[in-house]
Structure formats: C-alpha cells, structure tokens
C-alpha cells in the first residue's frame, strides 16, 4: 500500500472534503432537534398532508371593445351561475381589440360552458384551461395559510405551497402540517370547510326568516381582534372587527330594513361560519339608535358577552373570510406520530439489513476482506455524503427517500464491482498505466449506466408526483455523488491494493 501516493491523489482529497462537508451539514447545529440536522417527512414524523385543487375555469378572451373590467365581469356573469373575475396585465378598460384578458369562473363550470358564456357576452375566446389564474392560486394559498395559522398557531411548522404539474398543467395547493396534534384530522376540516362567513339578520321573528347582510369579503381581515376579556366580568369576552365601506352601508341598510333598529330583540343579527350559526345577539340600543338616525359612521363593530370558546370561534370565523374559489381536497394523508416513529426505526433497520446483505454477498463472491471492506466502506461513504447533502438542502427524509437510498447503495455497489473486476482482469496489474487504462474502461460503462439511470429518473423528479419524486431526486443525486466522488476514490484505493501485490 503506497500511502504517500494515495495522500497526493486528488480523488481521495475530494472524497474527504465531501465527507467533511456532509458531516458538518449533518451535525445538529443551530438548534436542530434530534441526533442530526436531517428533517424527516410526514411518513416518518407523523403529520398531515393535504393536496387541494381550486375549482374554476379560465378563458383567455379578447374583443372587449369599450367594455371595462367590471362591465365584462357583469356581462359574462349573466350567463353562468358562478362568480366571474377578469384580470389582465395592462391598464383597465383599454380599448384595443387586440387586448386579451383572463376571464376566470370561480366555481364548477365546464370548459365548453365557460367558452360559450364568454361568447354569448359578445367576446372572443382564445383558449380555455381548467383551473384558476396564478394570482387567484396564490391568494388561495395565502388565505389557507392564514386560516391554518389562526387555528393551529403560527408555530405549528405548517407549510402551504403551490405546486404545478408540468405534464397536465394542474395546479395544487399542498398543505403540510408536521407532527401530531390533538385534533389531527381537523387540518382537512379547517381547509375543506373553507370558512364561509356571513352575517344575516332575522327579518321575521315568528318563523326565524333571515336575510343575508354581508359576507366575509366585507370584513377587513386585519381589523379582527383576538378575544378580549371584559374588565368588569372576567368570564365574558369581546371580539372587535371592522366592515369595509360597502359592508358598512349594507349593514346599516339591512338593520333599518329588517326593523332591527326599531326592535333589536326581535331582529338580531346572526353570524354564520360555514353555514353554522356561531353567534346571535341583538344590536346594542345605542348602536341601533345611531344607525336609525344615520349618525353611525360605519366600520367598527364589537361582538360582546361571549364565553371564551365562543369568542375564539368568532375571532377565527371573522378573520378567515371566504376563499376566492371553492376548493376540492384531492388527497389527504394523516400519519400518527406513533406510526411515523415506528416506520423511522424500521426503515433504518431495513436500510442497515440491506447494506449488510450487500456486504455479505460481496464477501461471498470475492472471499477477500481486502475487496469487501473497501466496497462496503465506499457504500457507507456514499450514504453519508447523500445524507449530508439532504441535510444541507433541507430534503425531507421519507419512505421513498429510504427506498432511493437503498437503491443508490445497490447501483453504487454494482459500479464498485465493475471497477474491481475490470482492473483485475487478466491477472496482475504491473504498471500504473495498465491500471489507468482499465479504470477508464470501467468508468465508461459506469458513466453509461449512470446516464441511463438519471434519464429514467428525470421524468419522475421533473413531474413531481408528490412523495415519490423524492425517490427520483435521491437516486439522481446519489448516482452523481457516486460517479463523481466516491467511485473515483475507490478506484485509487483499489489501485494501491492491487499494484502493491502485483510483484
């Protein structure tokens, strides 16, 4: 073994540098929990993952003539039963006939239905897609994030992201809430029951007939207060909020028209969250009086006399507002912390057993620890490098990841066998030149196989098929680390082992 030559070999140094970086990356520095800085995915940590698809159809339309956006919205909306929004990049109401705009139908409308609604309104359709516009998608994502933070707390570690499928063009909002919580399944509920908030007023007390006054859209989201404890009575709470201008006008009119200002007890406003009554209570006499006289300036309102849990619900209900479009929960996964924990231990054990199986087979084949040990050590180095990479780039380790890791070990060992066999072919290796030639031959095969593997995995990584794209990414990165870093170093170590014994 020529250690001096080995110490000068850049391949060895590259491997060492990569390993040091990987170990530093893995070290639980900076407040990371657990033994390493690795973050675990839902399957191994427990938690809830929900994939949501917004319901809507968007038509690229043109030929608006002199109509401005509001007019277009109204004209198209006459032909369908769902809300219509128009958005365009340039100035509103531009008159050029070449201008295009996106006409978005916020609800369940077929593509044909959407196109004909646009055409019936006298505009030209240039194409139709299933789904909503990007800005609506981002808005939905923000609303959902806000709602979940309200209910679960900002420290819940939840993530809400928009993911697009490149093949089908579908857009999803993906919500991930790690860990287990007391009301685990409710994550789906919070999202699904999209927080439709509205205020109604009782118009006929004898049969409880009600009329809608305002919806969540009219509430200034930032104005809603947390439950405020009353100073006089600590068991009572108040929630304050503000209506926007239109909402204030509508509220005042409805109170007068319903008779609430004359007889508050008989015509109380009623608040609904997801069509469930969350509050019913008469107008305060002084508020009723000022609305009746027209001196109420609008805006701020208070809901008083609540117990703590009622106040919580009303605060959340008011803050959440209504989502821009209906949403459909296309998939949901809830993993208990216990199962996550079990799977974490088991998958570690499975990975360990698989490595052991590989090592045993190698030893059985070569009957030589001098080959078996470097092979297994190289395999382990590959795993460490890959884990370090994952820690640095914040990959979530989940089951698909573990499977990918085992697959990487498998392909890695395959390549080491090619190297070992190729350089030993035809017996002894007398000179470094012969060795280099044979190593080069081995690497041609390895390079071809690696390219093919990466090619096979690219579509998966690119399409982002949910959890399994992790498998593809791990495999690709693992193959690259192997081909570029660990396998060249293995070749160098093997050279010392073989040429040394050549005499």
């Amino acid at each position, binding site marked *: 073994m020529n250690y001096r030559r080995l110490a000068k070999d850049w391949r060895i140094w590259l491997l060492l540098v990569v390993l040091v970086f990987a170990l530093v990356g893995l070290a639980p520095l900076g407040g990371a929990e657990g033994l390493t800085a690795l973050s675990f995915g839902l399957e191994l940590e427990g938690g809830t993952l929900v994939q949501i698809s917004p319901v809507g159809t968007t038509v690229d339309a043109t030929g608006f003539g002199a109509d401005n956006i509001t007019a277009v919205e109204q004209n198209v909306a006459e032909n369908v039963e769902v809300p219509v929004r128009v958005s365009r990049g340039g100035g509103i109401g531009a008159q050029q006939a070449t201008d295009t705009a996106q006409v978005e139908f916020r609800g369940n409308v077929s593509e044909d239905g959407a196109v004909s609604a646009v055409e019936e309104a006298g505009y030209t359709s240039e194409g139709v897609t299933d789904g909503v516009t990007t800005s609506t998608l981002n808005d939905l994502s923000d609303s959902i994030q806000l709602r979940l933070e309200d209910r679960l707390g900002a420290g819940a570690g939840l993530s809400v992201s928009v993911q697009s499928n490149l093949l089908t063009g579908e857009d999803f909002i993906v919500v991930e809430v790690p860990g287990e919580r007391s009301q685990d*399944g409710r994550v*789906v509920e919070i999202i699904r029951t999209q927080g439709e908030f509205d205020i109604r007023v009782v118009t006929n007390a004898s049969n409880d007939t009600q009329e809608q006054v305002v919806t969540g859209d009219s509430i200034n989201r930032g104005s809603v207060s947390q439950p405020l404890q009353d100073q006089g009575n600590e068991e009572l709470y108040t929630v304050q909020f503000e209506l926007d201008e239109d909402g204030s006008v509508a509220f005042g009119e409805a109170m007068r028209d319903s008779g609430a200002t004359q007889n508050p007890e008989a015509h109380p406003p009623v608040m609904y969250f997801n069509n469930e009554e969350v509050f019913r209570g008469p107008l305060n006499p002084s508020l009723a009086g000022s609305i009746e006289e027209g001196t109420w300036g609008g805006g701020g309102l208070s809901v008083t006399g609540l117990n703590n849990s009622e106040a919580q619900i009303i605060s959340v209900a008011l803050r959440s507002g209504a989502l821009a479009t209906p949403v459909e929960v296309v998939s949901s996964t809830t993993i*208990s912390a216990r199962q996550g924990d079990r799977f974490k231990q088991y*998958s570690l054990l499975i990975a360990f057993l698989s490595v052991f199986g590989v090592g045993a087979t190698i030893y059985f084949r*070569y009957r030589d620890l001098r080959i078996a040990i470097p092979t297994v050590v190289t395999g382990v180095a590959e795993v460490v490098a890959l884990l370090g990479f994952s820690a640095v780039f914040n990959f979530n380790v989940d089951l698909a990841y573990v499977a990918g890791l085992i697959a990487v070990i498998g392909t890695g*060992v395959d390549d080491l066998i090619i190297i070992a066999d190729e350089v030993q072919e035809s017996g002894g290796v007398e000179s470094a030149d012969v060795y280099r030639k044979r190593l080069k031959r081995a690497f041609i095969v390895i390079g071809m196989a690696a390219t093919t593997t990466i090619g096979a995995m*690219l579509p998966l990584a690119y399409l982002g*098929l949910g959890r399994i794209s992790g498998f593809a990414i791990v495999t690709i990165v693992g193959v690259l680390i192997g081909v570029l870093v660990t396998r060249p170093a293995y070749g160098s170590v093997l050279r010392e082992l073989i040429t040394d014994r050549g005499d």
Partner: protein
Amino acid sequence: MKLRDIEHPTEKIDEIEYSEQSSKKLIAVPFAILGVALAVLLVTYLLTGAPVGLGFEFTGGVNIQTQTAVPAEQIEQEFSGIDGVPEPSNVRSISGGAIVSFQPLTNNEMSNLRDFRDANYADASVESVSPSHGTSLLYQSMGAIAFAFVLMTVVIFAFFRTFVPSLGIILSATSDMLVPIGVMTLLGIDVSLGTIPAILLIIGYSIDSDILLTRNTLSGRRKQFYGNVRNAMKTGVTMTTTSMAAMAVMAISAHFFSIFILRNIGIILFFGLGMDLINTYMMNVAILRWYVLDRRGMR
C-alpha cells in the same frame, strides 16, 4: 481471492458452454417467460378491465392502517358500524395491525370517519385520494414511464450507434419491466404509486450488465467473443445477484414491518433483476453472437 489467479479466459472453455446452445434455445426461454407475463396481464385485463390491480392511489378511495394488534374480525366489525360511513370495501390484517379500505367517500363521510379514527384509533394513518386525482396520477405515472423509456432509448442508441445490439438492450429492459408487473399481478399485489419509481429504476439497474456485455463483445476481439461474454458475465452476475440480495432483504424485512412501499419496491426490483439475468445472458448473448459472429460470416 488471489488476484493473479483469475484464469485467463480462453475460448475453448467458453465455447463449450455457450456455442453448443442454439440461438433459438437461448432466445426461447426469455421470450417464453415474457409471453407468460403478457398472458397474465392480458387475462387480468379481460377479467377486470385493467392489466394490473391498481392501488387506491390510482382508483381513488380511503385506506386506514391501524397500529394496534386487534384481530381483523374485530376491526372489521368496528369499522362496519360507524355512523354515516359506508361499510369498508376490504379489511385485511397485516403484521402489527390491519388495513381497512373504503370506496371513495364524500366529505361528510370522510369527516365522520376521521371522528371515529380520532376517538378509537388515534394511532392509525388515514390516506384518502379522490378518484379524479387518482386517474390523473395514473396518467402522469404512465407518462413518466413512457418518457423515461424514450430517454433510455435515446441514451442507448447514442452510446452504441449500432442498431441491433441497442435494440437488444432496449428489448431486454422492456421485458425486465413487464415481467415483475406480471409477478405482482400473480401475487395479488396492486400497482401503487410507490411501485412506479421501482419500475423505472429497473431501467437503470438492469442496463449496466447489458452495457457491460455489449461493450465487451463489440469492442473486444471477435475471436475472443466467448471469453468476452464470460468476463462480462462474471462481473454482471455478481452485480445483479448483489442487488438482488439487497432487494430480497428489503422486501422480506419490510413485509414483516408492514412498510409496503419498501416491500413492493423490493419485490419489483428483485424480479426485474432476476429477469435481467435471463434476458442478458440468454437473449442478448444470442443477439450479440449473431451480430458479432454470424453476421460477419464467421464461426
């Protein structure tokens, strides 16, 4: 192992092993296995309307995996009587728990089911996929496989630039992918989302022994054809059996730990690699022999 003791492969020994086998025989075995696999898929298609059993991720539905060792009958009974939830479509016990499956549920049914789970089986995992999303996932998976296949074809042809040997490698990889799917169908294991990467990985895994064989025989001396085959085979068989060992260990241990994603990936790769041994060292050797020796008028 004595490094210097590896015998120099001679044509004489090898020729006895391989040259006596007619190409027909060498090709018949892999094709017969492929034929059986295709027949299984065809019969399944005629019986069920799909060539393979599809997991709930593709058909839509709800799966609950419990973590307590309650007998399956009891679990079935308990899950059958939930207010506002249809009967489960299937209950089966696994080591350390059970899997309860439902047809796709409405939002309210799902909510009732979650109530039940929270109250009685808080340790259980719940997975739900809507049928439309399942269909979309299925098409995407098929797209990913097709796309990967095209990329593989391009890479192989670009490397070898010879039609027949390249075609042989691609034929082998195709068969390596189809046979394990047939095995899955025979074993009654549904193709789930987690098995898609395994099917794709067969391409990467099986290709290296093919490449090794093809490159060795095409670039080596014609006279040493059988010796080159033998060399490639020695390395290739070691590689493939090592990987098969890893996959068998993974499949068996994952089965006992009820981690089905890992088990299914293990099964697919194990059979895919096994099929690759047969394809590479029978079919591809026959194809290469014809290409290297017969076609050029030797032997």
